[in-house]
């Protein structure tokens, strides 16, 4: 009993407050459907969550020093896998969902093993074209994907577990929790990676690739790991997207979506693996919806880009909205940071 109590003695109580305050939104997210069943709010949160998962994958790949514009491609692969398995082949829904992530991951691993060898700008261009290639395959492979007509997806079957009766078709609430679970799992996995040794290995590859290689870090192995993980979760996100919208077609996962994912990561903060993409995707998704109501054609993309540029100008050095958080805390505590003192050199004794 005393040993158990001792754990609390060594807990970092002073730094507890930021974590407590950060836990509040998490609890709010869990309880939102209790307070509002409004379709608009839930719709917005579900779609923000789906894009957040894709954006987290982008940031993970970025953490290894590569810039992937192919996340939308893996969403498409996941979405189509789930739709084809459940609708065309009649598989049980949850197996189709599971396979969507697995198939996306396998394809990511195969393509990554080849394409990540070149790295750099060539890799980015190839992932960009990959997005378009997947779209074209979806359009032309009519026998499987029904081409431009798209597929109408079947929703998950009702779940009846004792007192629990979940009907996915009734309203958005079940999809909300499904998305929340996916966001949470993705976030926890990526956060754990960032926190431990592998995250340091990734960052070493980003900070100085040559030095990392000479310190024994096998570049390809870790690049492929990051690319595959990003692909797996993007696949799951794509499957939820396709099933929530009840339709999948080649038009919904294209070049613009890949770029949007990149912008969500940038605006949220490229230095953050979990919270940044979530904030970035929520902000940009809401912005996108509001802007698309404007009557002038093309203005939404223009203003969208303008917002991204403004964020890049006003929040310096690869930081994004997420970095406002420590700034706020610093103002509250008035701590003096030791870091950026220009020109100071070591005092020689």
């Amino acid at each position, binding site marked *: 009993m005393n040993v158990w109590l001792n754990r609390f003695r060594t807990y970092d109580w002073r730094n507890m407050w930021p974590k407590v305050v950060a836990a509040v939104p998490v609890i709010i997210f869990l309880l939102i459907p209790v307070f509002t069943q409004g379709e608009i709010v839930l719709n917005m949160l579900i779609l923000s969550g789906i894009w957040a998962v894709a954006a987290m994958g982008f940031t993970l790949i970025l953490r290894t020093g590569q810039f992937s514009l192919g996340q939308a491609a893996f969403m498409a692969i996941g979405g189509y896998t789930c739709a084809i398995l459940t609708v065309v082949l009649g598989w049980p829904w949850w197996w189709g969902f599971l396979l969507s992530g697995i198939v996306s991951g396998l394809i990511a691993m195969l393509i990554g093993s080849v394409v990540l060898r070149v790295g750099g700008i060539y890799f980015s261009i190839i992932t960009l074209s990959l997005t378009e290639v997947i779209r074209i395959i979806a359009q032309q492979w009519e026998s499987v994907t029904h081409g431009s007509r798209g597929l109408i997806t079947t929703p998950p079957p009702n779940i009846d577990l004792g007192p629990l009766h979940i009907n996915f078709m009734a309203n958005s609430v079940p999809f909300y929790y499904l998305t929340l679970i996916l966001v949470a799992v993705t976030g926890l996995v990526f956060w*754990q990676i960032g926190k431990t040794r592998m995250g340091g290995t990734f960052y070493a590859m980003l900070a100085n690739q040559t*030095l990392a290689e*000479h310190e024994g870090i096998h570049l390809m192995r870790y690049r492929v790991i990051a690319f595959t993980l990003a692909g797996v979760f993007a696949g799951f996100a794509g499957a939820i997207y396709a099933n929530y919208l009840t339709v999948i077609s080649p038009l919904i996962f294209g070049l613009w979506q890949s770029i949007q994912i990149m912008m969500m990561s940038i605006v949220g903060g490229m230095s953050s693996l979990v919270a940044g993409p979530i904030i970035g995707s929520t902000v940009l998704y809401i912005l996108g919806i509001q802007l698309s109501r404007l009557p002038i054609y093309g203005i939404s993309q223009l203003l969208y880009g303008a917002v991204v540029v403004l964020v890049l100008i006003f929040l310096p050095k690869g930081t994004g909205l997420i970095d406002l958080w420590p700034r706020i805390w610093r103002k509250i505590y008035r701590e003096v940071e030791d870091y950026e003192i220009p020109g100071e050199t070591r005092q020689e004794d």
Partner: protein
Amino acid sequence: MAFLELDDVTKLFGKLAAVEDVSFNVDQGEVLGIVGPNGSGKTTLINLISGYYKPTRGTISFMGKKISVLRPDEIAKLGLVRTFQSNVLYEKTTLVQSMLMSSRLQYKTSDIESFMETKKYKDEHEGVVGNVLQTLQLLDLFNETFRPASVLSHGYQRMLGIALALAANPKVLLLDEPTTGMNYEEAQFVVENIKKINEQGITVLLIEHNMKVLLDVATRVIVLSFGSKIADGNPHEMMNKPEVIEAYLGTETV
């Protein structure tokens, strides 16, 4: 079978031979100096040994294993670690962060074990952090452990470069002009540390221009000129050989 063996190693860039038919052996535990005027191929030689370049001809073997076909990270895993003449460091990270990122080779636990944060990994991690702090203390960097490398003076940044190489558990340390830009005291400090490192059993290959440093610490010296080896032996003897003097200073014209 020598510890580290270079056989007729040649590196051509187009028609230019940066290194031409260089052969020598390195014995375990020695401090081998590599000298020569600028452009003689010293850094290219280090690049070849560390795997950054592949030799056009010839082979490099370490403990009987042919390493000239391996990747740099595979060669580092075998125990050959280098520093860089231009002193590459990890940007924007604190000293302890850079050291931890460089100490990947000190771990025996797998990546999955580190992801799951198993007890075995946590224990190993504690040991590695201890080693890192010890290395920082050895090289007089301990006071700046939590500060970014940019606050260090040039001399201490080069010490950090050596520290990062030590973090990778080397059996052979390849130092590329470690005392560049250092004053007398800093260079002496480097010399002391090279001796300490060598006493721990690490073989050292040292490219140097500073003759005082070289004569103080090297047990043997190889002299390169225009990509070829022109002398190999005792440091004091080498420096007085006419070929070596000619390589550095040229011949007298009448």
